[in-house]
């Protein structure tokens, strides 16, 4: 296999694995602020229990995020050296900003969050929680800015640097607020909030089903539900904003989203299967003119099709189409689940409806899947460019790294990530089964043992 494909497989694999964790941290971080805020405000011990439990989960997830995140930072240099030379002036500064402004903030205050309960005051602890949550979102800001610059470069010029072309910053704020930054940032953050919210919903539903930690579960669930309702609806807005932005900044990507080949008024597909050779969507159900309407507010206005781009400038269509449509479908499912939960809560049935609780337990996977699919459609939709219209992916790899070396690292990553994932699931499962400390209900053997121990 050639080095370009191998390098891409490795990057895709390591970033996909990494991106399981940061969204949980960001989403759970927001919930922790609410949870601990409730504790500080009401002084009710149950909120302390809730906060402490979720901080333990947060710490585990955060550690996974750090361990897999450092790989990403190194990989630009190891596997994409030509890219690094080309964008270092621009992209590097966003990464450095992430380090200086976000990472130190997060990791510093995380130490207080996890180990500081007995060492600092409640207020200082609450402040640390806010800082960690803020830091995790700040980190998203810089990384999404860097990635958005690859999608819609702005605030730069191309310079000949000793025989090599590269991009250099001309206007820092234009680079930061490039045309897609804000849309993509709010879309990414909102997806992360959903990820955290549905994790809490899922675990709480699990406890309700098992009839354990009832008070804990109900209160956790209400807090998570409020975020889920807000974020799932907000996602409608951010998704629409993003798609509209793409129609002007990356029209080839939008065309691939909908499998749209000839410039004409475009339908919106609910689902379908793209046949790239025949240039049509098979087995599809669509709303005629809807894409034109969503993009331009006019059912008749033509949308640029893929045939307007040279064959070598088009992204792979079907994978982009499928990942995009699945993501949208999951997005609507999450809205449905959130609103249904609210309805059931109003009717006082949410905590009793076993079938619905079972669905909620499984729902933790949905935002995770949507995050991954969203990134696949965004990044594969950017192809064949690594920096849109400036540098091709195939021209961006490290010249001094051979395929044998990448196979070696790919095998090692596969092994170590498989091990990491098994350990992560195992520990998460144990923490969840163990449940929160100081639980008032009877938790079976463990709490009895603890009660005996305490009486001694």
């Amino acid at each position, binding site marked *: 296999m050639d080095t370009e494909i191998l390098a891409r497989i490795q990057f895709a694999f390591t970033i996909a694995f990494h991106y399981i964790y940061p969204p949980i941290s960001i989403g759970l971080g927001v919930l922790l602020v609410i949870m601990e805020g409730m504790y500080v405000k009401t002084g009710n011990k149950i909120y302390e229990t809730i906060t402490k439990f979720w901080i333990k989960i947060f710490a585990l997830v955060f550690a996974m995020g750090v361990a897999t995140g450092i790989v990403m930072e190194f990989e630009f240099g190891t596997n994409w050296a030509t890219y690094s030379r080309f964008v270092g002036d621009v992209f*590097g500064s966003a990464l450095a900003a992430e380090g200086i402004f976000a*990472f130190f*903030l997060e990791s510093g205050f995380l130490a207080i969050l996890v180990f500081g309960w007995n060492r600092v005051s409640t207020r200082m602890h609450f402040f640390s929680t806010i800082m960690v949550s803020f830091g995790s979102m700040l980190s998203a800001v810089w990384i999404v800015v860097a990635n958005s610059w690859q999608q819609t470069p702005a605030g730069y010029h191309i310079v000949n640097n000793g025989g090599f072309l590269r991009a250099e*910053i001309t206007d820092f704020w234009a680079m930061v607020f490039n045309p897609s930054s804000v849309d993509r940032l709010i879309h990414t953050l909102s997806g992360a909030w959903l990820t955290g919210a549905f994790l809490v919903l899922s675990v709480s539903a699990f406890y309700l089903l098992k009839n354990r930690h009832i008070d804990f579960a109900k209160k956790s669930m209400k807090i998570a539900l409020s975020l889920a309702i807000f974020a799932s609806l907000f996602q409608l807005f951010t998704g629409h904003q993003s798609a509209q932005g793409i129609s002007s900044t990356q029209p080839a990507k939008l065309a691939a989203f909908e499998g749209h080949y000839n410039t004409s008024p475009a339908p919106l597909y609910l689902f379908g299967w793209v046949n790239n050779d025949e240039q049509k969507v098979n087995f599809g159900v669509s709303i005629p003119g809807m894409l034109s309407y969503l993009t331009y507010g006019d059912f008749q206005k033509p949308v640029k099709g893929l045939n307007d781009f040279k064959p070598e400038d088009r992204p792979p269509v079907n994978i982009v189409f499928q990942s995009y449509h699945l993501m949208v479908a999951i997005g609507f499912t999450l809205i449905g689940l959130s609103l249904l939960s609210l309805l059931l809560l109003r009717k006082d049935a949410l905590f009793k409806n076993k079938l619905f609780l079972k669905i909620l337990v499984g729902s933790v996977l949905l935002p995770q899947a949507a995050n991954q699919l969203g990134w696949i459609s965004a990044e594969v939709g950017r192809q064949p460019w690594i920096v849109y219209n400036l540098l091709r992916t195939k021209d961006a790899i490290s010249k001094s790294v051979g395929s044998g*070396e990448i196979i070696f690292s790919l095998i090692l990553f596969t092994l170590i990530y498989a091990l990491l994932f098994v350990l992560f699931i195992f520990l998460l499962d144990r923490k969840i089964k163990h449940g929160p400390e100081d639980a008032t209900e009877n938790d079976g053997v463990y709490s009895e043992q603890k009660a005996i121990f305490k009486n001694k």
Partner: protein
Amino acid sequence: MDLNIIWFILVGVLLTGYAILDGFDLGVGALHLLTKTDEERRISINSIGPVWDGNEVWLVTGGGALFAAFPDVYATVFSGFYIAFMLLLFVLIFRAVAIEFRSKQESKRWRGAWDIAFSVSSIIIALLMGVAIGNIIRGIPVGADKEFAGTFLGLLNPYSLLVGITTVALFTMHGAIYLVMKTEGELQNKVRTWVNNTIIFFVICFVTATMATLIYYPNMITHFKDNPSFFLVAIVTMLAIANIPREINNKREFRAFLSSASTIALLLVLFAIGIFPNIVLSNPIVENSLTIYNASSSQKTLMIMLIMAIIGMPFVVAYTIIIHKIYKGKVKLDDTSY
């Protein structure tokens, strides 16, 4: 002083911060298997428990700053040292995982396995960093296209391995001193005996590596010849090293720790003076070297980042001091410990 020199210094400051802070984490790791009971091992791990990942952030930010300020260096070194960096990533992950997962099961085999993983990965991290520094001193083959033109095995030469072992020795000494600060009673007495041995081990390595450098890589002493006042740095380094056993014998651990932290910083200053203005010396074709001028980002970007550093660094220093203040004193195991 121009922006390129400022960034050469700033990247150096970040990496020095990393070496001092994560240096003791790695040293504690290297010594970890010398502790015997589970309680001692928990104290060992928890002595770095709340701070190690914050310390690692200095490396992440140093890497980011290198990428932003000297993209060609970042690209050439990271792709050129591919296998070495991959190994470094794996051991960094392994160390993180070992610290995080060890405490989660009571079983002796589980904990024993993670203890070994923690210790071995700490040693390998230190070794790889030293090997990288050794190769930068020797120079590596760089082509006219700025790409690395050597092999992985070529990086494992005797001199670089010597620098690697010296780095392990340095961090082990640093970690041992840190551990004396964090422990008490019987365990502290035990650790105290290790400190003396690690000092001897380090001094032997240091003298050998220095002799080797002077004999085989005289390029490192050019600036010292041209500007004899730099020799003062070398003298202060010797004094800092000599001060360590003195403070330890007087049971002033914190001052010993400051001395070993200064030793690390001063050694890196000597290294930086030696390689300046090259960051990657090309050997044998010197013209292909990557310097702070031909490998840097634009002046505008260096300026933007300097502003960011001026805004951000006071916060970074403040967090670092606050966290270490909150967790200063002896390790006390409680329900939040590893």
